[in-house]
């Protein structure tokens, strides 16, 4: 690994002689430790001059190892591996310079570290709370090692959200805010968007998410052993859960240098692609629903049902497959199933092609075209991922750039469209469905034989990074192994995490009618179709009437 990075190492050593503390090889990439005060410069050089794509950042409480708090910034050196910048600061004064001004995409990740570890980021443009609820006590940071995972601080006051309509009348300007949520399906969470609208045009958008913060990382670090974590990882998201458990396994396999049998690799790829097909079909259906094409919604879900059957056939369950485990997979695919799987996938392909031709008619295109524009440069700055990125003309795909599982041997194409609007994101997904069907066919044809699992010996304090291309983009896991068969630090980053900030750009100036489809166009893990609810009654603010007679009283001014 270090050999591949040699030119980068050399370059950095020349320029930042006084900043760099050392280089270290980690599972899946290279770790570069720098002095805390140099972090922004180095990060900016890596991002702007070396043109690496920003992935995510993570805090870590390493007081029990060396008495310090650490921050990791991860970049992807495409084709080589992940490039991780680490800086640590003494626990007595956890202050670290922020890189957000240089790498805008790091905004959320730094704020999260702020919440979860109590690390202060100097010069952060928006040092506000991100993940934790508003009523959470100020000096309590859940991911610190001295925090008990099951401790629930009592809430002193009931948190409030402003859901009522505000009307600002200034001159002739007439703008009002319209809440979208909290039961808006995005990420794996009910979310809350507040749209500032003027007439029927969206002017600005505010966002409050993380309704689904369930403390997964903490549970994974404190309760579960290596072999249990894949199951909780799968429940991070019910739609792309397998990408999560795979990338967790990949990270740990890379960290501990486990050789995974080829057959297991192929089985993982197979299930990952099946997951992509069902997820994209789901998205097509939901998009149709949002545009009012109920029939399109029903038909694409009808096709999807075959895919669910296929998943059940191959893994034993329709969702949350539970077959991933560090070192391989738990369930083999039997020979007779392969033939049946081939038949199903053929059926899906034929039916989907018919559906595609029916869907891509001018009336649909006109609703998608030139709406929700995301320019290429902004996409790179905010480090958006997946179809959102490829819809803006950036040809990246973890399957090609950081090959994992069996993707090195498979033949496929990345779908890229340059327009950056809702239509191009839609087209990317439609192309990807067909491409995935293609991959599934290839895998079913050449599934290698052999064992499906290897045992391994855990070793403490190894770092590993794993990424997998989920339907929505790159799922990223960073982990540090610990003692007693448990993780020391586990950082999970779902693709929607990077994609949501881009909505601010995409939603501006969009007609209200197109706001839902624009939000959906990043595919924020759609769960509910009926998505927005407005609960205006703060504290029982309504009257109950059960009979018509009492209406009269009401009218009289009761």
């Amino acid at each position: 690994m270090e050999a591949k990075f040699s030119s980068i190492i050399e370059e950095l050593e020349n320029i930042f002689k006084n900043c760099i503390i050392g280089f270290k090889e980690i599972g899946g990439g290279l770790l570069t430790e720098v002095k805390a005060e140099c972090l922004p410069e180095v990060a900016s050089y890596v991002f702007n001059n070396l043109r690496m794509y920003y992935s995510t950042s993570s805090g870590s409480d390493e007081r029990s190892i060396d008495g310090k708090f650490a921050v990791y910034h991860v970049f992807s050196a495409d084709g080589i591996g992940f490039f991780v910048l680490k800086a640590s600061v003494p626990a007595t004064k956890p202050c670290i310079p922020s890189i957000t001004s240089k790498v805008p995409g790091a905004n959320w990740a730094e704020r999260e570290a702020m919440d979860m570890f109590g690390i202060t980021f100097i010069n952060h443009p928006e040092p506000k709370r991100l993940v934790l609820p508003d009523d959470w006590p100020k000096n309590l940071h859940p991911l610190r090692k001295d925090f008990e995972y099951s401790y629930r601080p009592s809430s002193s006051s009931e948190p409030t959200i402003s859901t009522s309509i505000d009307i600002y009348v200034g001159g002739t300007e007439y703008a009002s805010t319209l809440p979208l949520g909290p039961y808006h399906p995005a990420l794996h969470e009910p979310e809350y968007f507040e749209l500032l609208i003027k007439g029927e045009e969206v002017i600005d958008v505010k966002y409050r998410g993380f309704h689904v913060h369930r403390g997964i990382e903490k549970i994974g670090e404190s309760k579960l052993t290596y072999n249990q974590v894949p199951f909780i990882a799968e429940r991070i998201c019910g739609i792309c859960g397998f990408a999560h458990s795979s990338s967790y396994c990949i990270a740990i396999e890379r960290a501990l240098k486990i050789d995974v049998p080829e057959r297991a690799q192929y089985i993982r790829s197979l299930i990952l692609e099946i997951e992509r097909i069902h997820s994209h079909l789901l998205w097509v259906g939901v998009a149709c629903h949002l545009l009012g094409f109920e029939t399109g919604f029903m038909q694409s879900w009808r096709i999807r049902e075959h895919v669910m059957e296929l998943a059940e056939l191959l893994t034993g369950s329709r969702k949350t497959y539970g077959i991933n485990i560090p070192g391989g997979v738990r369930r083999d695919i039997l020979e007779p199933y392969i033939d049946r799987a081939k038949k199903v996938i053929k059926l899906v392909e034929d039916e989907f092609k018919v559906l595609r031709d029916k869907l891509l008619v001018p009336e649909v295109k006109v609703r998608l075209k030139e709406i929700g524009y995301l320019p290429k440069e902004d996409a790179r700055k905010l480090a958006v991922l997946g179809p959102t990125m490829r819809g803006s003309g950036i040809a990246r795909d973890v399957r090609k750039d950081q090959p994992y599982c069996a993707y090195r041997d498979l033949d496929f194409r990345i779908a890229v469209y340059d327009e950056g609007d809702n239509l191009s994101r839609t087209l990317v997904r439609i192309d990807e469905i067909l491409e995935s069907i293609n991959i599934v066919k290839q895998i079913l044809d050449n599934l290698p034989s052999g064992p499906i699992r290897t045992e391994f010996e855990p070793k403490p304090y190894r770092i590993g990074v794993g990424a997998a291309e989920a339907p929505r983009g790159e799922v990223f896991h960073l982990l540090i192994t610990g003692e007693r068969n448990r993780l020391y630090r586990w950082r999970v980053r779902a693709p929607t995490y990077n994609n949501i900030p881009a909505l601010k750009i995409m939603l501006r100036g969009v007609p209200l009618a197109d706001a839902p489809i624009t939000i959906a166009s990043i595919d924020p893990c759609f769960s509910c179709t009926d998505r927005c609810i407005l609960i205006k009654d703060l504290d029982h603010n309504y009257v109950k009437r059960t009979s018509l007679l009492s209406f009269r009283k009401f009218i009289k001014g009761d």
Partner: protein
Amino acid sequence: MLSILYVILTILGSIIGFTVAPLVDGIERKIRAKIQNRIGPPLIQTWLDIAKLLRKESLIPRTAKALFIIAPAIALAMNIAALPLLYYGAPNVLGFYGDIILILYLVVGSSLILSLGAAASGNPYATIGFSRKISLLIACELVVALSIATAILKTGSLSLTEVILRTGIAPSMIIAGIALLIVTYIESLRLPFELTEAKPEIMGGIFVEYSGRLLAFAELSHILHRFVMTLLSLDILIAPLLKLVFGVSIMGVLMSFIILMLISILVLIVYGAIESLCGRTRIDRALIFTARLMILPIISLILASIGV
């Protein structure tokens, strides 16, 4: 003797209209389900829904004004009042000189008051639904008014029955009828014009704050409104023809009654089928479409004024 039959038919027609309109809604849902490869709800589902809603409690937001509560009932009453004024294949003895104007008032008024009531709930979604509805309503009702004006101009009468009896086959009336039929589709808030409810966008729009009994009234008046509008357009488009073919004898009247009822149900079903193949449009596009539609009644008006 004959006039008793006329009265009976009109009343029968009104009652059938009242009971059948929700049933037709059920048929539509069934057809939609079939197009989507589903089994779909039972035919009487809409009645079941309404029966259920009548038995649930109604929540009234504190921000709501009195209009919020009375609007659904008024709208329902207006639609029911419009029923016996329509032409059911037999000369409407209950009609009077000027009833065509009253029908116009009732039709426009009922949907207006329903959206006003919704706006009175103070809910932002309802407000947006209201503003969309009003813009659509203005465009649509212009078409309706112009078409009716054609009929009045053509026959010189303000009574619906007389208009029908006097017309015969006239191109201007046919064009006006077609315009009415199209506008009925738009105004009945079906996809792609289902903008005021638009669940994914504004979650039920004008109906968002209604619950229980109030919702039942609102739904029922919405469904009746569809029926009234459809029958009204068919009255202008087909009734004169039926009268020409069958005359006003006992048999003729009965035949035209049956045919008219069947056709109006058929039209509603066809509308339902069209709906399931469409997606939602945007309010600006919908308005442009409706504005283009305005050409039809204008042509018919011109034709009528030169006596064709």
